[in-house]
């Protein structure tokens, strides 16, 4: 994403190089690893029974639930979602081709893609009521009921073995669109507001087809990429809706039931990590190998856009394979502690612990992008969505204050996010191990491998950030 935006936004992860850090960047990786090791020892010594496995859902007062969850608020939220979808398509097709002056690019890749993750972690499944495809399908279904006097039945039942695989496929497609197709190479920006609007229309048609064939809620729960992706992060939230009631639950506890043996769930978690990893690596550690491969494929310097896209596709695939291999190697190590479960089953049992890592990677990689681009979103892009000089809300003259946070400040946020995310993952892993193995000693032994994975992912994340920001 930042490859696409950096051409016009001048902001990748930081605007200027860091200065005067008290210790070298690599030493932060050592310190973070030490924090993880100490956390691991503390968990082993002091955490003897699972605390996140029970739901402990406590409904809020009936009046609060009714005030927030009723047909009127559902209709209003749906209308807001449909309106924003329409603005994305309209400004994409009708607005300026300059990505930095067009509402669509920043809204889709920053406000929606990243902002909705933050909203989901804080407030639960925030995307559900605002989902424009759900709202439109609901309106069409309501109209059908009115005319035909009965509900429209789903023609086909959803194959259980598909699980969340359609959503995982959609996530790869979205990642490919922004990081590979949108890769500018040295010649041109591949992903214009117009192509984003077209992709939005294509995805809308695909989603309506999925809902039409398998039923609205079934497709949203399993196949609709954004619902499933944001839902994964919402499982960490302290708020949830159960049986129509809004309520509180222990933060993180929802994650313990998210995978639930549904096919494709483990891959979805890992893909979320891998796509962010590739975005970070593409700017630093992998930048040189990618351009070398692209140039050798094109037989010229600079490489053609087509060759650059092929090279990026290859390295995106390799990054996904690397993250999957790292995860399954760790799980295989855990399997050696006790051979009761298959490695695959163990992977399903522990994959939820990696959701906080996916979140940590997102925060670490995109924190500064969100901080700077949201200033644009809520000033000139809001007042002048087409970039044609209009000033609807009188904020078209606003700009981005790149001094809002220093480069060192960004680095500290990145390090903090990675450490907190991985310690949280260790806690969830240890908690699940107590449930799986029953015995504290066996649980601790199984988590040696989880510790290795956490240290590995932390060091990898910090290395990629240091290379991208350096």
């Amino acid at each position: 994403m930042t490859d696409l935006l950096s051409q016009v936004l001048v902001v990748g992860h930081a605007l200027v190089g860091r200065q005067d850090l008290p210790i070298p960047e690599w030493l932060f990786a050592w310190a973070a690893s030490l924090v993880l090791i100490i956390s691991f020892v503390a968990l082993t010594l002091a955490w003897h029974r699972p605390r996140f496995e029970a739901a402990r859902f406590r409904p809020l007062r009936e009046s609060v639930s009714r005030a927030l969850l009723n047909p009127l608020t559902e209709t209003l939220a749906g209308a807001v979602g449909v309106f924003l979808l329409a603005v994305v398509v309209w400004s994409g097709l009708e607005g300026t081709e300059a990505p930095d002056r067009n509402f669509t690019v920043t809204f889709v890749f920053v406000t929606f893609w990243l902002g909705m993750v933050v909203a989901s972690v804080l407030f639960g499944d925030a995307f559900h009521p605002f989902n424009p495809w759900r709202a439109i399908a609901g309106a069409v279904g309501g109209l059908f009921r009115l005319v035909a006097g009965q509900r429209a039945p789903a023609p086909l039942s959803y194959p259980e073995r598909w699980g969340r695989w359609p959503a995982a496929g959609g996530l790869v497609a979205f990642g490919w669109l922004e990081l590979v197709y949108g890769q500018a190479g040295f010649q041109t920006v591949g992903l214009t507001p117009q192509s984003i609007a077209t992709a939005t229309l294509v995805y809308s048609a695909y989603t309506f087809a999925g809902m039409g064939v398998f039923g609205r809620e079934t497709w949203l729960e399993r196949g609709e990429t954004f619902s499933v992706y944001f839902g994964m992060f919402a499982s960490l939230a302290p708020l949830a809706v159960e049986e129509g009631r809004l309520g509180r639950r222990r933060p993180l506890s929802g994650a313990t039931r998210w995978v639930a043996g549904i096919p494709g769930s483990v891959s979805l978690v890992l893909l979320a990590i891998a796509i962010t990893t590739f975005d970070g690596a593409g700017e630093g550690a992998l930048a040189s190998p990618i351009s070398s491969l692209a140039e050798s494929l094109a037989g010229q310097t600079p490489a053609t856009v087509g060759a650059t896209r092929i090279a990026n596709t290859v390295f995106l695939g390799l990054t996904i394979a690397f993250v999957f291999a790292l995860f399954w190697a760790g799980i295989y190590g855990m399997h050696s502690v006790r051979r009761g479960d298959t490695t695959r089953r163990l992977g399903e049992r522990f994959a939820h612990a990696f959701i906080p890592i996916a979140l940590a990677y997102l925060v670490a990689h995109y924190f500064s992008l969100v901080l700077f681009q949201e200033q644009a979103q809520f000033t000139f892009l809001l007042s002048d969505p087409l970039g044609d000089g209009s000033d609807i809300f009188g904020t078209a003259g606003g700009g981005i204050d790149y001094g809002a946070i220093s480069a060192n400040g960004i680095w500290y946020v990145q390090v903090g996010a990675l450490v907190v995310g991985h310690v949280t993952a260790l806690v969830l892993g240890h908690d699940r191990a107590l449930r799986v193995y029953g015995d504290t000693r066996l649980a601790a032994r199984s988590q040696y491998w989880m510790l290795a994975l956490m240290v590995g992912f932390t060091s990898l994340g910090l290395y990629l950030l240091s290379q991208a920001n350096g």
Partner: protein
Amino acid sequence: MLVVAHAGHYIWVLYAIPVAIVLASIVRSILRERGKEGSDAGHTTDAEDRDEAGQGQADARP
């Protein structure tokens, strides 16, 4: 001079060191625990052997 000029390419090694230390500690710890379990099992077998031998002697008594 050439080595120093390319030192930046090997900075990842510094990030890999904590991973290597943790992995080495895990392998060492697992080997030690397996060794301990093996020797415990060996002791148990010896004890069982002694019990069986004792039982045999007891049975052989008139």
